[in-house]
C-alpha cells in the first residue's frame, strides 16, 4: 500500500503539470493544435487513474485549456470527482474547473448537491468559502432550491469571511429560485447592520442589485439605507447606496427632498471622485423626480452642473467622459442649465477620444435650437466625412437624424435643407442605417405636405442614380433609401417633372439585384407612375405615346414576374396582366387614364406607430370567440394549406377606398388643388433662388437624358446642404433687415450687410421664421386610444420573478406573514414534522424553531417577534384541527382569551389584505419622509429668530422645554417601525423642529392638550378624497438647548406576547440626541425620576437613582439615537415623568458640565398595540357583555373617512376590523390585554365614536386622546 503511494507520487513527478503544459504550448507555436490534442490524450489517460492527485493535476490543465477555447465538458464527471476530494488543494482545483465550465445544462451538476452541502458545513472555513465561490458561478434552480436553507444558515456563521460570501451568493440563489426571497429577506436585512464591514457591504450589494430591478419593493428600506449612508465611511458601500437612492427617488419624491442635503454635503466634502460623481448622479435623479419650482433646487442644479463642468474640463479623460455622461441626464429635465455650457460640449466633439465624442454627441441633442441647428449639423456632417470607423460614423448619422427629428421636427426651419442632408447621408459607405434615412424621408415627405415637390424631385434623382448606391454590394444597408425613394416618387407622382424618366429608372434590369422588399415597392410604384404618365399622355394629343408607355411596362415587367421573391412575383404578374388589359383597351382607343389612376387615388395619412395596438377592443367583442361554428377537426386539416398563405409576410399594400366613384375623386382633387393654390405657405413652383430648375415647362418637352445640374446630388463632391446654410443666413439677414426697416423707417441710413449683422446682436428664437411654413401632419391615433404606455419589459427577464412584495414580510400581525409553503425546503423530514405537529403544552417559546435555523442574532426583540410568528403559525395549525370542539380549551392553552383575535386573524391575513396594514405601511414610510419641511420664507425667518432667542437664553429654553413633550410617545403600530427607528435627524429636521417650536409659542395651550401627532407635516386641510394619505409623524421634540437637542421618537411598546405577565409590560422609547454646538459632547447620562408606576430599566447592578449612560459621544453636528426601556405597572392612566440629561461639553481648551431637563409623557394610546381582529371574533367580543361602553362625538372633522381611519390607526394603534361605507369597526389591544373596540360613524362633518372596553378608565383616556387628535384638525 505504502509502496503504491510512493510509486504514485513518483509517477506524478514526471506527469506534466500546468506549468509544463504552458511551456509546451509555448514551445510548439507552429503546431499548437496538434500538441494540445496530444496533451488532451494524456490528460484523458491521467483522468483514468485512481490517484486523485493525478486527476487534480489533469483537471487543472483542462481549466487552462478551457480558457484557450477547448471544450472540456467531457471531463465534467472527473471534475466532480476532484471537487469531492477531502484535500483542500484538490477541492479548490475542482471547484475552479467547475466554475469555469459548468452551466445549467451540465447534467452532472445534480450529483454535486450533497457534496456541496457537505462542504458548506465543513468545519474548515476555506472549504466552505471555495464551495460558495464555485457555487456562485454554476448555481442552478435545483441547486438553489436544495441549498438555499444551508446558505441561509451560513449567513449567520461566526466567521465574517463565510458570512459575506453567503450573503453575496444569496442574490444568485434568488435569481434561480425566487421563492427563497421572502423567507431569506429578513435575515438579509439584518445583515445590513452586521458588525463586519465586509458583510455589510455584501448585504448592501445584494439589496442594491435586487432593488435596481424592482425598486418599489424596497422603498421601505429607505430609512435604513439613509442611516447607513450617513454613518458609513466605506466608499464602496456609499456608492452602492447612493446609486440605490438614485433608483428609489423616482418612486418617492419626498425621499429626494430628504436626500438632497446630505448628498450636497457629501459632494462638498468628499475627496473621492467616484463618490462625488455618484452623488452628483443621484442628485440629478432627485432633481428629475422633483417637480421644478422649489426654490433650493436651482442651487442644486447649479452645483451639479458646475461640478460636472470641472469634471469635463479635467485633463483626465475618464472624468471628462463621466462628466458628459451625467450632463446628458441633466439635459433631459433642465436643458437650460446645460445649454450654457455649449462651448465646452462643442469642444468635446473634437476630442480625439471616440468615447468622449459619442457622449458629447448625446448632449448635442439638447443644445440645438432653430438658430443653430444648421450650423451644428454642418459640423457633424464634416465629422461624418472625416470619421474613420463605421461605428462612429453610424453613430453620427443616427445622431444627426435624432437631432433634426426631435420633438416633431421642432427645430427645422427649412425642410428642403433637411431633405438635402438626408440625401447627402445616402452617400455614406457601408452604413447600417439606410432604413433610418429611408424612414425619415418617408416621414417628412408624408407629413410635410409643402415639401413634397422638392422631395419628389430629389428622390427621382436618387432613383436615377441608384447604381451609385447599389454599385457595391457591400454597401447594402444604404439601398434601403431606394425603398423610400421609389415609394415617394410613386405616391406623389403628380409632382414629378418627368415621370416617364423615373418610370424608366424604376424598371431597369439592375433593379432585380435589389432586395426583395425593395423590388416589391418598385413594382407597385411603377404602376402608380404608369397611371400618372398615362394621364398626362392621354391628355396630350397623340395616343401612341401612351401605348409606348404600356409597351415599356409589358417589356420590363416579366423580369420581375420571374423574381424568386413571392411578393415581387405576385405584384408583378398582377400588374403585368393589368397593363396588358390596358394596352388592349388603348388599342381600341378607349380612354383609360382616369380609371387607372382611380386604382391609386386617395390620401394616405400617417399613423402613429402604436396606433393599432391602442385601438380599444369594443365592448362586447370577444376576439377569442368563434365567429362561425368552429370547424370540425377533419375540416381544419383540410384547411391547412390556406394557413400557409396566411402566414406570409405582411404585404406592403395599402387599403384604399377604391369604391369612391370617379366624380367624387375628381372633385376632391380639384378641391385640393384649389386649396393648395390658396394656401400661401404651400410651395408652388414659384420662382425662388434655389428652385429655378423647377421652372421647366411641360414634362414631355424635356429630353429624358437631360439632368439639371442645379439639383445638388448631381454635383458630387460639393455638399449641397451648405447652400442652404448660406441661403438661410441670407434669408435671416434679409428678414432682420426687413424688420428693421419696418421698425425704423425714418432711419434712412443704410449699413453694409456685414455691419448690420454685427450690430443686430443675437436674435431670439422667435425671430427666426421658417423658410416655408410647413404643415406637419400629426400621426393618427384611434380616437379613444388609451394613453398608457405598454411596458416593453422583456418577459424573460429573470428579475421579473423577483418582483416580490417584501414589506409585509417583516414579522408582524396583520401582514402577510410567511406561509408554511414559503419556508425554504429543508432536508430533514422529521424536523418539518415536528414543526407542524400541534403543541399541546401551549408554550410556544420552548418549542425549538425547527423550520428555520436558529438565529444567532442577539437582538432579543427580533427573536421575540419570531417566536410570536411561530406561535401564531402553530396556533393556526391547532386551530384547524380542533376548530370547533376545542376552541375554549385552546384559548386557555395560549394564555388567555386575549390571544384569540390574533389566532382568528391569522386565518384571514393571507387572503384579506387589511386596509390598515397597507395604510400603516404607507404612513410608516411617510412618517419618516415627512421630515422634509416645506417652509415658507417668513416662517424660516421666524425660525431663525426663535433659534437666536433660544440660543441667547439657554436656561429659558430648558424651562420651556417641558411644553414640547406633549407629543405623546407613540406606539408605532407594528413592528416594522423598527426600520423607521434607525433614523437620524438631519438639519432639515432641525429646521422643522425649530419651526415647530416657534409654532408652539403661538399655539401653546392648544398643543398642550392635543396633538395626537398632528404634526405640521399633516396637511389635513388639503387632502381630497382619493388623495394618498398625508404623512404622519410621531417625532416630537423632547427638549433642546444651545448644545443639544433631544427628540423622542415614537415609543414602541414591547410586551410579552403571552399577555400573562400582567406586570411585566415594557415601553421602549427611542431618543435622538443631536449635537447643535461646535464642541464634542460626551459622558451623556440620561436619568428620570421613577414614579411608582413607571420605572426606567437600568443596567444590572445600578441603583434606582443612577442614570442611563448614553453609549456614545456626539461630535459637532452629529446625531445619534438611544433606546430606553421603561417598565409600566398600570396603564389605565397617562403618565408623566421628569428627567434630566447631564453631559460634558468638551471644547479644545475646556470642558463644561451641562444639564437639560425634560418631561416624558406616556399617553394611554401608547399602551395600545395594533392587533388585527377578525370580524367574527369581534362580534363575539361585543356580545360577551364584559365590556363597558362609552362614546364621544367629534364635530367639524374635515377629512375623508379613510384618512380619519388611517389617523386613528396610526396615532392610536387601532386596526380596522370592517368598514362599510361611512362606518367602521376598529379594534386594538393594550399591552396588558384589554380589548378596545370602536365603532366609528361619520355623517357630514360629525364623527361619532362608540367605544367598548373592559377597562373604563383606559377607555375614557383613550377617547379623550382621540378627541384631542382631531380637535387639532
Amino acid at each position, binding site marked *: 500500500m505504502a509502496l503504491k503511494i510512493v510509486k504514485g507520487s513518483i509517477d506524478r513527478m*514526471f506527469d506534466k503539470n*500546468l506549468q509544463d503544459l504552458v511551456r509546451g504550448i509555448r514551445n510548439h507555436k507552429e503546431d499548437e493544435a496538434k500538441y494540445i490534442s496530444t496533451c488532451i490524450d494524456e490528460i484523458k489517460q491521467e483522468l483514468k487513474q485512481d490517484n486523485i492527485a493525478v486527476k487534480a493535476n489533469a483537471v487543472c490543465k483542462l481549466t487552462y485549456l478551457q480558457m484557450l477555447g477547448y471544450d472540456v465538458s467531457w471531463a465534467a464527471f472527473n471534475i466532480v470527482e476532484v471537487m469531492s476530494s477531502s484535500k483542500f488543494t484538490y477541492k479548490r482545483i475542482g471547484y*475552479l474547473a467547475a466554475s469555469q465550465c459548468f*452551466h445549467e445544462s451540465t447534467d452532472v451538476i445534480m450529483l454535486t448537491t450533497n457534496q456541496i452541502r457537505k462542504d458548506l458545513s465543513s468545519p474548515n472555513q476555506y472549504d466552505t468559502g471555495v464551495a460558495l465561490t464555485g457555487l456562485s458561478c454554476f448555481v442552478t434552480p435545483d441547486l438553489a432550491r436544495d441549498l438555499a436553507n444551508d446558505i441561509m444558515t451560513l449567513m449567520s456563521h461566526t466567521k465574517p469571511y463565510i458570512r459575506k460570501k453567503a450573503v453575496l*451568493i444569496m442574490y444568485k440563489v434568488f435569481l434561480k429560485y425566487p421563492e427563497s426571497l421572502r423567507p431569506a429577506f429578513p435575515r438579509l436585512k439584518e445583515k445590513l447592520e452586521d458588525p463586519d464591514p465586509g458583510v455589510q457591504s455584501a448585504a448592501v450589494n445584494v439589496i442594491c442589485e435586487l432593488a435596481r430591478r424592482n425598486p418599489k419593493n424596497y422603498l421601505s428600506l429607505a430609512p435604513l439605507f439613509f442611516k447607513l449612508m450617513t454613518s458609513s465611511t466605506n466608499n464602496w458601500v456609499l*456608492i452602492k447606496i447612493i446609486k440605490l437612492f438614485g433608483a428609489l427617488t423616482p418612486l418617492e419624491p419626498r425621499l429626494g427632498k430628504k436626500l438632497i442635503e446630505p448628498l450636497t454635503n457629501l459632494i462638498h466634502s468628499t475627496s*473621492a*471622485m467616484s463618490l462625488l460623481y455618484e452623488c452628483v448622479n443621484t442628485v440629478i435623479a432627485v432633481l428629475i423626480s422633483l417637480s421644478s419650482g422649489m426654490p433650493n433646487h436651482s442651487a442644486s442644479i447649479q452645483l451639479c452642473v458646475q461640478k460636472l463642468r470641472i469634471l469635463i474640463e479635467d485633463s483626465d479623460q475618464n472624468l471628462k467622459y463621466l462628466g458628459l455622461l451625467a450632463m446628458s441626464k441633466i439635459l433631459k429635465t433642465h436643458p437650460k442649465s446645460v445649454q450654457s455650457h455649449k462651448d465646452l460640449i462643442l469642444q468635446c466633439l473634437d476630442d480625439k477620444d471616440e468615447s468622449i465624442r459619442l457622449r458629447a454627441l448625446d448632449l448635442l441633442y439638447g443644445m440645438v435650437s432653430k438658430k443653430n441647428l444648421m450650423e451644428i449639423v454642418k459640423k457633424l456632417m464634416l465629422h461624418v466625412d472625416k470619421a474613420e470607423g463605421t461605428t462612429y460614423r453610424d453613430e453620427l448619422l443616427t445622431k444627426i437624424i435624432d437631432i433634426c427629428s426631435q420633438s416633431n421636427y421642432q427645430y427645422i426651419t427649412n425642410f428642403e435643407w433637411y431633405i438635402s442632408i438626408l440625401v447627402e447621408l445616402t452617400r455614406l459607405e457601408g452604413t447600417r442605417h439606410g432604413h433610418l434615412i429611408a424612414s425619415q424621408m418617408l416621414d417628412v415627405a408624408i407629413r410635410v405636405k409643402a415639401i413634397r415637390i422638392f422631395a419628389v424631385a430629389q428622390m427621382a434623382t436618387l432613383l436615377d442614380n441608384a447604381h451609385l448606391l447599389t454599385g457595391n454590394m457591400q454597401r447594402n444597408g444604404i439601398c434601403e433609401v431606394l425603398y423610400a425613394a421609389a415609394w415617394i416618387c410613386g405616391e406623389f407622382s403628380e409632382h414629378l417633372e418627368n415621370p416617364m424618366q423615373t418610370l424608366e429608372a424604376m424598371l431597369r434590369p439592375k433593379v432585380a439585384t435589389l432586395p426583395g422588399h425593395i423590388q416589391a415597392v418598385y413594382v407597385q410604384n411603377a404602376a402608380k407612375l404608369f397611371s400618372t404618365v398615362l394621364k398626362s399622355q392621354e391628355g396630350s394629343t397623340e395616343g401612341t405615346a401612351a401605348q409606348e408607355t404600356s409597351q415599356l411596362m409589358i417589356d420590363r415587367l416579366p423580369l420581375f414576374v420571374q423574381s424568386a421573391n413571392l411578393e415581387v412575383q405576385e405584384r408583378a404578374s398582377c400588374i403585368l396582366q393589368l397593363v396588358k388589359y390596358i394596352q388592349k383597351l388603348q388599342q381600341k382607343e378607349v380612354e383609360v387614364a382616369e380609371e387607372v389612376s382611380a386604382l391609386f387615388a386617395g390620401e394616405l395619412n400617417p399613423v402613429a406607430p402604436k396606433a393599432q395596438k391602442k385601438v380599444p377592443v369594443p365592448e362586447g367583442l370577444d376576439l377569442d370567440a368563434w365567429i362561425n361554428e368552429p370547424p370540425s377537426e377533419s375540416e381544419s386539416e383540410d384547411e391547412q394549406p390556406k394557413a400557409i398563405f396566411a402566414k406570409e409576410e405582411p404585404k406592403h399594400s395599402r387599403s384604399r377606398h377604391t369604391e369612391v366613384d370617379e366624380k367624387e375623386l375628381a372633385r376632391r382633387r380639384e378641391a385640393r388643388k384649389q386649396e393648395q393654390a390658396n394656401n400661401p405657405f404651400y410651395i408652388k413652383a414659384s420662382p425662388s433662388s434655389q428652385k429655378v430648375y423647377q421652372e421647366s415647362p411641360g414634362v414631355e418637352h424635356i429630353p429624358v437624358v437631360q439632368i439639371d445640374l442645379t439639383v445638388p446630388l448631381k454635383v458630387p463632391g460639393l455638399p449641397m446642404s451648405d447652400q442652404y446654410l448660406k441661403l438661410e443666413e441670407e434669408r435671416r439677414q434679409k428678414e432682420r433687415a426687413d424688420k428693421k426697416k419696418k421698425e425704423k423707417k425714418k432711419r434712412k441710413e443704410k449699413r453694409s450687410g456685414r455691419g448690420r449683422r454685427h450690430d443686430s446682436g443675437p436674435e431670439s428664437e422667435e425671430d427666426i421664421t421658417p423658410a416655408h411654413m410647413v404643415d406637419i401632419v400629426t400621426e393618427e391615433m384611434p380616437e379613444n386610444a388609451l394613453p398608457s404606455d405598454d411596458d416593453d419589459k422583456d418577459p424573460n427577464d429573470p428579475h421579473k420573478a423577483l418582483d416580490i412584495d417584501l414589506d409585509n414580510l417583516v414579522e408582524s400581525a396583520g401582514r402577510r406573514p410567511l406561509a408554511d409553503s414559503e419556508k425554504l425546503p429543508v432536508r430533514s423530514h422529521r424536523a418539518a414534522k415536528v414543526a407542524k405537529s400541534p403543541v399541546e403544552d401551549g408554550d410556544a417559546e420552548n418549542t425549538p424553531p425547527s423550520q428555520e435555523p436558529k438565529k444567532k442574532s442577539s437582538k432579543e426583540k427580533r427573536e421575540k417577534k419570531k417566536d410570536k410568528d411561530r406561535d401564531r403559525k402553530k396556533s393556526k395549525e391547532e386551530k384547524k384541527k380542533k376548530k370547533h370542539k376545542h376552541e375554549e380549551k385552546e384559548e386557555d392553552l395560549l394564555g388567555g382569551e386575549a390571544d384569540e383575535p390574533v389566532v382568528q386573524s391569522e386565518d384571514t391575513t393571507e387572503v384579506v389584505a387589511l386596509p390598515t396594514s397597507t395604510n400603516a405601511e404607507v404612513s410608516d414610510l411617510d412618517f419618516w419622509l415627512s421630515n422634509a419641511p416645506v417652509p415658507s420664507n417668513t416662517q424660516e425667518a421666524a425660525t431663525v429668530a426663535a433659534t437666536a432667542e433660544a440660543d441667547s437664553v439657554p436656561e429659558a429654553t430648558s424651562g420651556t422645554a417641558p411644553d414640547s413633550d406633549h407629543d405623546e410617545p407613540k406606539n408605532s403600530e407594528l413592528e416594522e417601525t423598527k426600520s423607521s427607528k434607525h433614523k437620524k435627524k438631519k438639519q432639515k429636521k432641525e429646521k422643522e423642529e425649530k419651526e415647530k417650536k416657534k409654532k408652539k409659542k403661538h399655539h401653546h395651550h392648544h398643543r398642550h392638550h392635543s396633538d395626537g401627532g398632528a404634526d405640521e407635516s399633516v396637511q389635513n386641510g388639503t387632502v381630497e378624497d382619493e388623495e394618498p394619505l398625508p404623512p404622519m409623524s410621531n417625532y416630537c421634540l423632547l427638549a433642546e438647548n444651545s448644545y443639544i437637542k433631544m427628540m423622542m421618537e415614537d415609543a414602541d411598546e414591547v410586551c410579552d406576547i403571552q399577555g400573562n405577565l400582567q406586570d411585566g409590560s415594557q415601553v421602549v422609547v427611542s431618543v435622538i440626541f443631536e449635537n447643535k454646538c461646535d464642541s464634542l459632547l460626551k459622558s451623556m447620562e440620561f436619568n428620570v425620576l421613577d414614579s411608582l408606576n413607571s420605572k426606567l430599566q437600568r443596567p444590572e447592578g445600578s441603583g434606582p437613582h443612577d442614570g442611563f449612560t448614553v453609549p456614545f459621544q456626539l461630535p459637532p453636528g452629529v446625531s445619534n439615537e438611544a433606546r430606553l426601556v421603561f417598565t409600566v405597572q398600570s396603564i389605565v392612566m397617562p403618565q408623566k415623568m421628569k428627567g434630566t440629561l447631564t453631559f460634558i461639553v468638551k471644547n479644545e481648551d475646556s470642558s463644561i458640565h451641562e444639564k437639560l431637563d425634560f418631561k416624558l409623557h406616556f399617553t394611554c394610546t401608547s399602551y395600545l398595540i395594533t392587533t388585527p381582529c377578525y370580524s367574527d371574533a369581534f362580534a363575539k367580543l361585543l356580545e360577551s357583555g364584559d365590556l363597558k361602553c362609552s362614546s364621544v362625538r367629534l364635530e367639524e372633522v374635515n377629512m375623508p373617512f379613510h384618512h380619519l381611519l388611517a389617523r386613528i390607526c396610526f396615532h392610536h394603534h387601532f386596526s380596522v376590523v370592517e368598514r362599510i361605507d361611512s362606518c367602521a369597526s376598529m379594534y386594538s389591544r393594550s399591552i396588558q390585554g384589554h380589548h378596545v373596540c370602536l365603532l366609528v360613524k361619520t355623517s357630514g362633518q360629525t364623527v361619532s365614536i362608540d367605544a367598548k372596553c373592559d377597562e373604563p378608565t383606559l377607555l375614557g383616556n383613550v377617547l379623550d386622546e382621540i378627541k384631542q387628535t382631531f380637535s387639532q384638525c
Partner: protein
Amino acid sequence: MIRAILIFNNHGKPRLSKFYEHYTEDTEQQIIRETFHLVSKRDENVCNFLEGGMLIGGSDYKLIYRHYATLYFVFCVDSSESELGILDLIQVFVETLDKCFENVCELDLIFHVDKVHNILAEMVMGGMVLETNMNEIIMQVDAQNKMEKSEAGIAGAPARAVSAVKNMNLPEMPRNINIGDISIKVPNLPSFK
C-alpha cells in the same frame, strides 16, 4: 454586476478569462477577440470606458479596462457598478497580484493562471464585488496557500523538487517584462479606501 473579467496581452492572447454568465467556448473566444479588437486600437491617453461590443453587453453594459505594460485588464460591467469604482478595483487587483507574485509580470500570469483565479475569487464572487480591501484579500489568499502547503507536506516535496529542476531551464524566458509603473494611479482618482 460584473459580467466578465478578461486579461489578455498586447497581442490578444488570453491570460485569464472569467465569465460570470454562461457562454459556449467558441463565443468566449469571440468575445475575447472582439474585446481585444475594441480595446487595442485605442490610444494610451483616452478614457478607460467604452461601450460594449456586440457579443457582450448591450446598452446597459460597459467595458472598463486598464492597460499595464503588456497586459490589458478588462471588466465588462453593467450600470449598477460605479465606473471609477471598477477602475479602482482593477488597480487593487493588480496591486494584489503584485504583492502575491512579488513584482508581477506577464509570465506569472501565464504560468500560474490558477493562482490568479484564486486571488480573483477573493475579490469578485459570482459577478459581485466581494472584497476591496487589499490586506484582507492577501490575508485570505495567504491563509489558503498555507493550507495547501501543509496538505502537500512531505509527499509534495519531491514534486516541488522536480518542478524546481524543470524551472531551472528557463533562461531564455525574459523575466523583465515587469509591470513597472504599477503604483502610478490615475490622476485625480484618489484611492478608494
